């Protein structure tokens, strides 16, 4: 049966050679190599659950009276968008499960991408010849964040409305162009015209997912062409060593996919996320205390909250409205640094111009690791500042005091992180007590001709 299928495919497509290559493709082993895979499998779950949701979602701001089965909101005036998501949540069998799984998958998707990115940075996997793939990955991270934001904006509940209001203000805040930019996206003044909703929907369900899928395909194609990087314990700069695709790796990766999907469905079924019926529909004059976006927007909320009330005004003209600093400039700097990193690290003499197939351990390049950690800690400190209001309710440390603390913290902690990390790397390297690090030298011994030769196994 197998033989006949292979023969049939090979005679028609010449499939035997590529199949042979594919089945024997080598995957080096390390647990951190799973992070990117987890992200990919989350994307698969997102597409599958998203297709189900698309069949129900209505992108419309037409008002109606809610008549679904959630009693507390019956008779409430709301948009068709919100009502359709209420319908999915309460009146479509398994609808809430799929919706919550979709939401959880989005959150885990971006967690996995970020951890994958951190791994790539700390081990130097972005170095030549893999810079192009690194840039594809950073682009996918940006698209994923935008996609997630659009996703929870589509619901048109109170939180999504507040998020869109902030997005509108950030668009408005771009110097000189901002007002017009926001009017083009929203088709007029906030809260925008009816055409906003189909625009958000087509971006969320088609354009951005297609872009991510395309970049993902290129990302994988480049990995296959260049082979995976690996730690020096396994292979060398010339030889990649690991488990072949068939049979070992196929089953393990399939297992990872099923486990990721299973955990996401468990979360979607058991752990409530974004209970839109508690927030209710959005109106521009409504807001709620304790509003927190999905985690991957937290760094922007933190930056917007930390920024002192500074606006650049010349005469009557506000050149730089305040939301620009935290909402536009900050992410532009973060992504700018991420994109610039491979050439920047070469420029700073942290990396060389040679090709690298072997990964560094973070400690092998203390300065580079310390710089990357300082950068990550800086972003994380600002991210943490996005939760100050929640922390206030737990601790009753004054909100204003916390904001002042985080303003100083975000500026100072990167320097501290830099020196601590560098020191730790050097200490670790000096001790060389790493379980993965085998000794790679050769024992030599003097031979009869007064020269040296590798020691025989029995005498070593």
């Amino acid at each position, binding site marked *: 049966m197998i033989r006949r299928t292979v023969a049939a495919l090979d005679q028609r497509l010449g499939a035997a050679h590529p199949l042979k290559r594919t089945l024997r493709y080598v995957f080096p082993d390390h647990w951190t190599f799973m992070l990117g895979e987890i992200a990919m499998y989350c994307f698969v779950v997102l597409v599958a659950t998203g297709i189900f949701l698309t069949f129900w979602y209505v992108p419309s701001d037409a008002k109606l009276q809610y008549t679904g089965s959630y009693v507390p909101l019956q008779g409430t005036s709301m948009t068709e968008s919100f009502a359709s998501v209420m319908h999915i949540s309460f009146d479509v*069998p398994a609808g809430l*499960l799929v919706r919550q799984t979709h939401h959880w998958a989005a959150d885990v998707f971006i967690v996995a991408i970020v951890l994958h990115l951190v791994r790539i940075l700390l081990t130097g996997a972005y170095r030549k010849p893999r810079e192009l793939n690194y840039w594809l990955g950073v682009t996918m991270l940006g698209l994923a964040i935008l996609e997630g934001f659009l996703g929870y904006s589509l619901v048109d509940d109170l939180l999504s409305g*507040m998020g869109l*209001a*902030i997005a*509108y*203000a950030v668009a408005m*805040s771009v110097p*000189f*162009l*901002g*007002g*017009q930019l926001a009017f*083009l996206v929203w*088709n007029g003044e906030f*809260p925008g015209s009816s055409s906003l909703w189909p625009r958000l929907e087509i971006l969320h369900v088609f354009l951005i997912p297609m872009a991510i899928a395309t970049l993902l395909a290129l990302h994988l194609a480049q990995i296959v062409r*260049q*082979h995976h990087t690996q730690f020096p314990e396994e292979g060398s700069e*010339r*030889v*990649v*060593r*690991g488990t072949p695709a068939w*049979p*070992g790796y196929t*089953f*393990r990766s399939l*297992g*990872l996919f*099923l486990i990721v999907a*299973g*955990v*996401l469905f*468990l*979360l*979607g*079924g*058991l752990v409530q996320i974004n209970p839109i019926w508690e927030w209710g529909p959005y109106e*521009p*004059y*409504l*807001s709620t205390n*304790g*509003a927190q976006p999905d985690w991957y927007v937290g760094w922007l*909320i933190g930056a*917007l*909250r*930390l*920024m002192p*009330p500074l606006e650049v*005004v010349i005469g*009557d003209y*506000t*050149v730089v*409205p*305040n*939301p620009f600093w935290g909402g536009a400039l900050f992410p532009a700097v973060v992504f700018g640094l991420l994109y610039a990193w491979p050439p920047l690290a070469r420029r700073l003499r942290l990396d060389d111009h040679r090709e690298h197939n072997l990964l560094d351990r973070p400690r092998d390049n203390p300065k580079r690791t310390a710089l990357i950690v300082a950068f990550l800690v800086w972003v994380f400190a600002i991210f943490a500042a996005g939760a100050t*209001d929640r922390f206030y309710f737990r601790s009753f440390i004054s*909100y*204003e005091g916390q904001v002042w603390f985080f303003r100083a913290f975000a500026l100072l902690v990167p320097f501290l992180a830099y020196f601590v990390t560098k020191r730790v790397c050097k200490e670790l390297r000096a001790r060389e007590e790493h379980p993965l690090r085998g000794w790679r030298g050769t024992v030599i011994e003097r031979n009869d001709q007064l020269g040296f030769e590798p020691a025989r196994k029995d005498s070593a």
Partner: protein
Amino acid sequence: MTPGGLFARLVAALGGLGGLRRNRERRQAELHQILPPGKRQFDAVRSEEQGRGREAAPPPELDETGDPRAELYVALLLIAAAVAFVGFVVFYVVSEDTQLLGLSIGIGLVLAGVAAALAGKRVVIQEKTTDEYVAYGDREERREVANHLVEGKVGVTRRKLLFSSLAAVGAALGAAAVVPIASLGPRVGEKVYETPWSAGKRVVDERGEPIALDTLSPGEFITGFPAGESKEEIGSALMIVRLETDELELPADRADSAPGGYVAYSKICTHAGCAVSLFRYPTFDETQPGPALVCPCHYSTFNPADGGKVLFGPAGRPLPQLPLRAGADGSLEAAGGFYEPIGPSYGGIREDPGAKPL
């Protein structure tokens, strides 16, 4: 599935497994007889190594000792996963309960996943193989490509003219392709300044009722709207608070804007456009800061006693105040438009708190 049926299936599966295990042991014994030990080790990568003339790679390892116990576990996990998936179907039909649905399909997927991973690690043949990293880049071919590209201009005489024309058409086409973006929305302009408020416009609450001067006590607030206008325009909603008249510190030219201690501000934050829906009012003056309007998005804090001045947070402009007066029937109405432009700042917004009501 009935418990009895399940049991029967389990017995059958275990029986089958036992048979498989015996079969496998027999096969391995045969294999060991046929192949000398050294040859057996290299078998897995032999086909790949053939005819490729490559440098010596570390010898691959091949662990082909069977693990019948792992095979049994995999089968049990798969059967358990099947039970969970059947459970999903049953729950879907009988209860539609989100927790049960999520639990059954999630557990099923995780069990199947563990089974697959275990199969990959313990059941199928364990081997490490190698391949070569390919160093891309061929100097000779690069040169050929460049030459081939350069050949494109052979025989072209008026190169400069053609290139300029090409650049012109490229730029023009680019412009023509970009311009339709402007169709996506209206031009920004004075539109942003327009609000439904003007002198004499009645203030109503969310249900459309007028707001009498005794509606609020000092320290209370209410959301106000222009009578007969849309509530959804960002120029509409007001945050109306009542303070003690001696708490007010309004600028001299706004002294008449607060009848009975009622002050009205645009509810849309000048920072990022959220609704400023929090009102802080001290119950014990000695230890608590004064009254404030607070936006829950980024906690911009405005002083309602002093024309909406920024007390804390990122907002760069005061919250725009709307002058109030008592109408003929004693309820609140606007005494004019806002003192400042409403909504989040953008390039071109005017920064002129002293200007006449718009």
